[in-house]
């Protein structure tokens, strides 16, 4: 805590307290029990702001993963027979517990992931929203029927049925929310589940699963297995697992999609992104700049919805860029438990190295550095993995930095003549996750949303994060599968339609 005394006033600048300094070695939650992994492979969990260890995570074995699958499989039928309203009640109980522990969940996320406390609170809210939506399962899961639908005196019904065991393989950037895009819907609709958190950020789910236990889900219905590719591969190969949900990079998403499909599973695999934010000549500059700062630098650029390419159309380029660079200089970096911080570090030393490598590459390709975050240092957190806001101007569509996902606070600036050229550029990308336009013209906005081949479109919105009752979409190499996470898509992914034709003699 830094104390400041100014005249007669006594005030201090506070850093919020950490939930724990050291979380020790975490366990798996299988069949309603907390189980110590027997694996000899244990990995340190780092606080990216300090580079210090805050706990240890086991790389669970194939056998331990199979035990979790068996537990989920054994629990499935009685859970499937549990009435939807009873299953929904557990969701309400979990929601209440998540609300009670809201602040701790957010602070643990800051500790292990590096995001700011506001970002972590926002993520916790979105986590809870998914539980709230899943609690509506009695309505969400209703089937449909038609009297005399098959023939005179013969009725036809479509019943929505759960399938069995599902699993999620989760990334590091949203430790609380991403598992909740999937499992509340799966479990509420009568399936059982296994969550494998990222080995870089397992603490948040570890804490949340204590609440899952307290909420009273029956043993085996929801399970947590920590680890790496041994766990993931076992989940993708095991015949009892009916489907896999994945979020991560495109090469791994492709691997998960292929391997899981080969093993006869349903798959929804969310990959990488290279999102463009297009500024039209009539954009409201001040408001757009402010909004874009959150898109480019929020979560240190480690969102799959983060802005990456800044596409300036026509004569807006110079005035817009001037303000954008100035505002970017005002971004305050630091440990996310300081509430005044706008941007935390990237998640690891390797991540920092990769981001810095891309900045170097951009310079090598001929881009001009308007703002260089490579040597950013935060007083008191000198070992942290901070990369400052970085702006590369004069980027052209053929450059690597314009095409590849950097996953850091790096803005690549491209200039285009008109909207057609901007949309063509977006379409030249192998990704199709998100794109935004900043304009006051309804015509341009309509054309952009109609023509742009991306799953998430923003109109004067830089982070197109679908709410829990909408699907988190994605096209091209940003998504492999057909049904997305969240909302009705999730219900469809985790269930099948059973048709019943009935005649009474």
């Amino acid at each position, binding site marked *: 805590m830094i104390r400041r005394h100014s005249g007669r006033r006594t005030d*201090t600048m*506070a850093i919020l307290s950490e939930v724990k300094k050291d979380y020790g070695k975490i366990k798996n939650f299988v069949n309603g029990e907390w189980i110590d992994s027997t694996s000899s492979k244990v990995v340190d969990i780092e606080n990216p702001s300090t580079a210090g260890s805050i706990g240890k995570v086991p790389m669970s074995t194939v056998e331990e993963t199979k035990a979790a699958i068996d537990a989920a499989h054994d629990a499935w039928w009685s859970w499937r027979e549990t009435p939807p309203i009873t299953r929904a009640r557990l969701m309400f109980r979990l929601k209440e517990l998540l609300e009670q522990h809201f602040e701790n969940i957010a602070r643990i996320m800051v500790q292990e992931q590096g995001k700011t406390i506001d970002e972590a609170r926002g993520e916790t809210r979105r986590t809870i929203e998914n539980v709230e939506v899943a609690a509506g399962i009695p309505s969400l899961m209703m089937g449909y029927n038609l009297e005399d639908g098959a023939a005179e005196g013969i009725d036809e019904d479509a019943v929505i049925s759960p399938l069995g065991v599902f699993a999620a393989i989760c990334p590091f950037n949203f430790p609380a929310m991403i598992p909740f895009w999937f499992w509340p819907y799966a479990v509420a609709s009568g399936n059982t589940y296994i969550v494998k958190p990222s080995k870089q950020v397992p603490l948040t789910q570890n804490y949340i699963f204590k609440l899952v236990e307290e909420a009273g889900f029956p043993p085996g219905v929801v399970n947590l297995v920590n680890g790496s590719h041994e766990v993931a591969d076992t989940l993708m190969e095991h015949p009892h697992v009916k489907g896999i949900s994945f979020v991560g990079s495109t090469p791994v998403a492709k691997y998960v999609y292929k391997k899981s499909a080969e093993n006869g599973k349903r798959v929804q695999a969310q990959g990488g992104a290279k999102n463009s934010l297009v500024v039209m000549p009539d954009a409201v500059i001040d408001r757009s700049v*402010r909004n874009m*700062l959150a898109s480019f630098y929020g979560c240190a650029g480690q969102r799959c919805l983060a802005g990456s390419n800044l596409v300036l159309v026509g004569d807006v380029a110079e005035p817009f860029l001037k303000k954008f660079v100035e*505002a970017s200089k*005002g971004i305050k970096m630091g440990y996310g438990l*300081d509430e005044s911080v706008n941007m935390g570090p990237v998640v690891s030393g390797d991540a920092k190295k990769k981001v810095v490598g891309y900045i170097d590459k951009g310079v090598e390709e001929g881009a001009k550095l308007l703002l260089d975050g490579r040597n950013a240092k935060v007083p008191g957190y000198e070992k942290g993995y901070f990369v400052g806001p970085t702006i590369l101007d004069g980027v052209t569509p053929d450059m690597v930095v314009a095409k590849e996902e950097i996953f850091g606070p790096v803005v690549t600036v491209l200039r285009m003549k008109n909207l057609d050229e901007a949309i063509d550029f977006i379409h030249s990308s192998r990704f199709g996750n998100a794109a935004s336009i900043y304009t006051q013209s309804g015509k341009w906005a309509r054309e952009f949303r109609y023509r742009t081949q991306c799953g998430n479109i923003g109109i004067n*919105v830089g*982070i197109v994060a679908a709410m829990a009752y909408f699907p988190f979409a994605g096209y091209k190499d940003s998504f492999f599968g057909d049904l997305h996470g969240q909302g009705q898509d999730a219900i469809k992914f985790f269930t099948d339609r059973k048709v019943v034709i009935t005649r009474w003699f």
Partner: protein
Amino acid sequence: MVVCEFPECTTFGAVIRFALELEKGSVAVYEELANEPKYAGGAETFKALAAAHKKRGDLLEHTRREKLNEMILEPIQDLKREDYLIDTKVPAGADLKAAARFAGKIEETSSRFYLDSSKVAKMLLAEAARIMERLGKENQANKAKLESL
């Protein structure tokens, strides 16, 4: 004397935290005044104002928890922390009038903070802006009550 922890107002969360610290400071000052026998003539008013500021704190906590989402996490660069710091040390030897004036100054600073924050919040979140505006106006009404002591 209460120690307030005022952050730089560079994020939505920090603005709410700043507001919570203002409320904490206000509650502490009013409770101190309400419990001091020499201010017995204003005790009821001070007690009521302490309770009102506590309630405002709950409203702010609720706003932070319920209203924050990713789409509004824009950096804030228009509010200067130093413009809204308050003094919570009741001057020694102050009579009731002077003590009320001292508390009125806190209300005045708080009002300015909320009304300025409301303008910033309007760009992010209409509901938060409405709450801030309401709190700022309440501060003005509180100040008027204190002036009548």
